[in-house]
């Protein structure tokens, strides 16, 4: 066992990789090694992995239905105990099970927002930075307009226009999330675009599209990834905020923000109803922040040696 793991490490860290795949895996492995030296980043990674695990295996881990109400006379607003591990809410639903299923929504929000917002931000930022001139001016003014509004307020406006619901909340958050990534990608592009290795591609006759996609975007990707990871906490909070205001996921969907909103009426006497999803939001946000901080150190090209 030890023999195979050490030979795998040697295969990954060899100075003479034999194939493209080996070189890439070795590179990724070295990035992971840098990350793994940072205990807080590993704690963040553990939280994020746990979130994914819980979301995937929610049906197996849940003890009750997340949506169906229990016996409203005897099982309503019970404190944490042996049957309902984290208590029940006012509809006599098991909070533990709702929390597990809620992680799916949180994860979906996180994934969809990053899948929608990151490419938009990258495209606008790199095009703006690479071409400069009036293209830059127009794209950056649009970005400025989006940046000028507080994110929750802008998301509220979009949801109000599109109608409440988790899908619209995700779209609204994505629309409000891309401007910082565009700014970041543009700043990175400005430092890269006049470097010799970009000149070299131009001298080979590479088209602008090729230079952008194959040479500039991969270099912007790491800093944008870090930024997106750090933003995850804010995205989760915005989604929860929309849910809390009744504009995100609609009851009885077990969304964490909606759960807090429903529990707030019982905050004084049955505190766990609101506190449990609140702690979950807090822990997951913290996890993404810690991971983002660690990634920044691990992916920083200046530190990479």
């Amino acid at each position: 066992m030890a023999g195979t793991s050490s030979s795998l490490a040697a295969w990954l860290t060899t100075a003479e990789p034999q194939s493209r795949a080996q070189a890439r895996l070795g590179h990724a492995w070295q990035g992971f090694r840098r990350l793994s030296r940072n205990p807080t980043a590993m704690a963040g990674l553990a939280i994020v992995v746990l979130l994914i695990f819980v979301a995937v295996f929610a049906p197996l881990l849940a003890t009750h239905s997340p949506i169906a109400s229990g016996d409203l006379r005897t099982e309503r607003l019970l404190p944490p105990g042996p049957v309902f591990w984290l208590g029940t809410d006012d509809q006599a639903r098991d909070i533990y099970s709702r929390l597990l299923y809620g992680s799916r929504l949180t994860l979906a929000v996180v994934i969809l927002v990053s899948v929608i917002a990151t490419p938009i931000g990258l495209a606008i930022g790199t095009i703006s930075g690479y071409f400069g001139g009036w293209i830059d001016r127009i794209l950056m003014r649009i970005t400025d307009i989006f940046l000028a509004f507080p994110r929750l307020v802008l998301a509220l406006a979009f949801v109000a226009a599109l109608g409440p619901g988790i899908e619209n909340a995700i779209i609204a958050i994505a629309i409000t999330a891309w401007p910082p990534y565009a700014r970041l990608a543009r700043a990175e592009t400005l430092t890269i675009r006049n470097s010799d290795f970009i000149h070299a591609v131009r001298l080979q006759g590479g088209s602008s599209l090729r230079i952008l996609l194959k040479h500039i975007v991969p270099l912007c990707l790491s800093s944008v990834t870090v930024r997106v990871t750090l933003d995850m906490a804010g995205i989760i909070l915005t989604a929860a905020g929309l849910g809390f205001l009744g504009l995100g996921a609609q009851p009885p969907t077990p969304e964490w923000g909606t759960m807090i909103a429903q529990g707030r009426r019982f905050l004084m006497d049955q505190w766990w109803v609101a506190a449990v999803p609140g702690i979950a939001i807090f822990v997951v946000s913290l996890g993404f922040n810690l991971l983002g901080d660690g990634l920044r150190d691990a992916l920083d090209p200046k530190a990479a040696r």
Partner: protein
Amino acid sequence: MTTAPPLLEASHLSVRFGVGRLTVAALDDVSFTLAPGESLGLVGESGSGKSTVLRAITGLAPLSGGHLMLDGVAVPTPRRMDFFTAVQMVFQDPYASLHPRHTVDQILAEPLAIHRIPDAEARIVAALKEVGLGPSYRFRYPHQLSGGQRQRIAIARALILRPRIVLLDEPTSALDASVQAEILNLLEELRRAFGLAYILVSHDLAVVAHLCERLIVLRQGRMVEETTAAALRDGSVKADYTQAMLAASKGFTRPAPADPAIAPARNI
């Protein structure tokens, strides 16, 4: 002597940077020709415009006057694909001219992919061999290579399209002396093997004399003198400025101790 047009002819090149009253002439009325297989040196100090000549040839710096002919045909702006297969460039800083996230393999595959050249696999291995690197270097990242090895990769990238002209922008000034010797030898070998024509930009007269037969001395964007390496060697260059550079490149000469302040202090 021959009726065939020169490989590259530059006449009255001028390049200006900036707009309005702030324009600076980076290059002013520079003309030269390059024959097939010939090696031409461009010598000058910082601000002489020697690197701007290369950037003007490649189109990275737009010409504000003069014109360029390749094989007797005017070079269009923007440059067309056939220009890039004929003219390639090696940059000064091997730490900045290779993409930090691409392996050697990706770096060498890129020009082949752009020009849709088949049989990339074999050509990459051959290109590495030409610059004296084994196939074990193929999947390394630039940060795993030394400065000299990086410059070899940059040369391999320039040669993989089989150009006839290679522009060399201070290719050895970021390298140690022992590595410089290896790169200069490699450049000479490759020139012989492929009949390449070089335009070498350098501030180092000895390097230019080593690699080139003819050279042009530039100062503040203008041509000071067009001369030969032989004239540089025997010191028969005409312009005062070239003479001054020649004298300065021979190391430090202590002024005769006529100044009494210098001599006694030495003996403390």
